């Protein structure tokens, strides 16, 4: 299976630069998710790889061969689109067959591949229907089937699940994951949905403003975000961010929080580069890393309850701080115990902190 590489990619529309000096490589068999908010350039990057738009500068190579100036059909790619992009006048079988029209294959081979894909995706009974007679989930399967029959090494997905309802989305997520585990294709998958990214990816590239902010495994991205943008973009409810000023107290490093007017001990944090006395920092705390009523932990805060929110399997307690509410995950059964206005003490283990430089936004 091939490896995909972007080298110094730039894309400009007139005088507007969308991507600049972008480098990224996708290893053989990897499931790379390009994750970012709308307009961050992730779909542009995917279309550049597909050859649907041309690069302004830079090189794209697949499996060691440069494809920058090849036609889309000659790049050895298959793509699944957000709106499925099925051909409305063709049957499901016709749609799958047309996917093979660029490859010169004999009829028996075409039939064999169509049957194989139909079986794999369980769309055999639908082969003679038109796309308008299919439900959203079935159309999605056909779209994936049209990509599968090509028997290429690299698959591109452009937000394929965003038109499905929540239940189907979960099903299709598992389905795509299963296909990847079975077939081991190299996949580049674009989405703005962090749940899709976290559940399916073997590697995530978080993008913002046309720049790749961080590349890493889902765990790395979640546990050690490289900067404030990644930290805030990943996780729901998002990470609590507290502005603070560093103060040295003998051997200990203290962060004096601005909003909560408290100070916490950050000595235990594995700093790459320890901050100096008086530095402005941002302390990031994941909601699930806080322990309510655990006063024995070295860092703790006392804050009044604003409200509690239950979502079935989960519950989140929102505490009042100066600006944004501070989220802490609690047991759903406990949610009713917290009255608005009552003070609650939340403790944190220092090694779970994410500390960022307030100026540059980078992790320290």
């Amino acid at each position, binding site marked *: 299976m091939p490896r995909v590489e972007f080298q110094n990619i730039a894309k400009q529309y007139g005088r507007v630069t969308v991507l600049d000096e972008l480098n990224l490589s996708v290893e053989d068999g990897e499931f790379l998710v390009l994750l970012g908010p709308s307009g961050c350039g992730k779909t542009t990057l995917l279309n550049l790889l597909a050859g649907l738009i041309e690069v302004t500068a830079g090189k794209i190579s697949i499996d060691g061969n440069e494809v920058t100036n090849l036609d889309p*059909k000659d790049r050895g790619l298959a793509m699944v689109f957000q709106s499925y992009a099925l051909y409305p006048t063709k049957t499901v079988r016709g749609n799958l067959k047309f996917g093979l029209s660029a490859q010169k294959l004999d009829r028996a081979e075409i039939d064999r591949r169509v049957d194989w894909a139909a079986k794999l995706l369980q769309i055999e009974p639908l082969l003679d229907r038109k796309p308008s007679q299919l439900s959203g989930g079935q159309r999605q399967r056909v779209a994936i089937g049209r990509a599968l029959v090509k028997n290429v090494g690299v698959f591109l997905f452009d937000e394929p699940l965003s038109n499905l309802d929540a239940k189907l989305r979960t099903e299709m997520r598992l389905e795509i994951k299963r296909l990847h585990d079975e077939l081991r294709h190299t996949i580049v998958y674009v989405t703005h949905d962090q749940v899709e990214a976290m559940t399916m990816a073997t590697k995530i590239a978080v993008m913002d403003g046309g720049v790749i902010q961080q590349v890493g495994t889902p765990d790395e991205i979640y546990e050690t975000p490289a900067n404030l943008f990644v930290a805030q973009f990943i996780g729901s409810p998002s990470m609590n961010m507290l502005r603070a000023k560093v103060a040295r107290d003998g051997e200990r490093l203290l962060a004096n929080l601005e909003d909560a007017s408290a100070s916490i001990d950050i000595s235990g944090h594995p700093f790459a580069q320890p901050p100096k006395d008086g530095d402005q920092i941002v302390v990031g705390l994941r909601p699930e890393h806080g322990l309510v009523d655990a006063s024995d932990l070295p860092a703790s805060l006392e804050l009044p309850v604003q409200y509690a929110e239950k979502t079935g399997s989960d519950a989140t307690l929102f505490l009042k701080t100066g600006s944004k509410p501070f989220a802490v995950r609690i047991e759903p059964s406990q949610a009713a115990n917290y009255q608005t206005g009552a003070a609650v003490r939340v403790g944190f283990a220092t090694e779970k902190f994410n500390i960022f430089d307030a100026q540059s936004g980078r992790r320290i």
Partner: protein
Amino acid sequence: MTDILPLSPNQKAFKEYPKKPAKIKGSSIAILIFLTMCALFIAVPLYVMIVTSIKHMDQIRLGEIFSLPTQVTFEPWWKAWNEVCSGVQCEGVKVGFFNSLAILFPSLILSIGLSMVTGYALALWNVKWAGTFLFILFTAAFVPFQIIMIPLIILSGIIKVYGTIWGVAIVHAVLAMPLLTLIFRNYYKDIPNEIMSAALMDSGSFWRIFFEIVLPMSGNILIVVLILQITSIWNDFIIGLYFGGIGTKPMTVILANSVITSRGEISYNVDMAAALLTAIPPLVIYFVLGKFFVQGITAGAIKG
């Protein structure tokens, strides 16, 4: 245990609601009167034509053009079809009918085929200077035919098609190009980008995508353009008159000649019958395809 519900939520019992009284507004009366007047404007002359065409000349001489025929005769129709003279030739308008048919098909194929492919390329492929080209086409749609007629005659002479059926067909195709290309281009613009992207990745061939994906999606607009073109080609007089040779005059030209060249007493009944015969084919097309015409104008490309 709770009671089992007698009806599932999808099977609601049918309830009778009082019907809302129909209201007739002043504005709708005004519209009705206006539309009736419009209809009469077409219908009254048509009525006169039909009754005149089945009257004997004796009754026509009385000058009561609105009266019903006292004695119905279909002889004028037979005469119009078989005997009417156009110049020195007295073989009726049927000669023109077959000439018109012979002109119609090549003209349709040329004009629709050319403008369809041009519209497809302009709408869905990256064509250099597409905007400029469209602007020129758009301007060309407003150039009156009479202005370019003489140069066109010279041009068709140079390429040796003047006076032949193909000459008439080519002129029809050229003149229809601007409008038809714009119609097709705007229709194809509605085809979602992603379908085109998928086709580019799947096949990438200009003609294959056209014939397998785009052409099957063009049913609605084809009907609209067909009706438009059949009517305008069939009803055309001036192109047929100037570009058709002696033996390739369309029905409209034969009709005009026969009305002009009647000797002695003017046989109004035969003239009317000949005119009606000439008008029938587009009417038939409207009746057969009219339903699709409305659908085609309102529907987009993606309805499958």
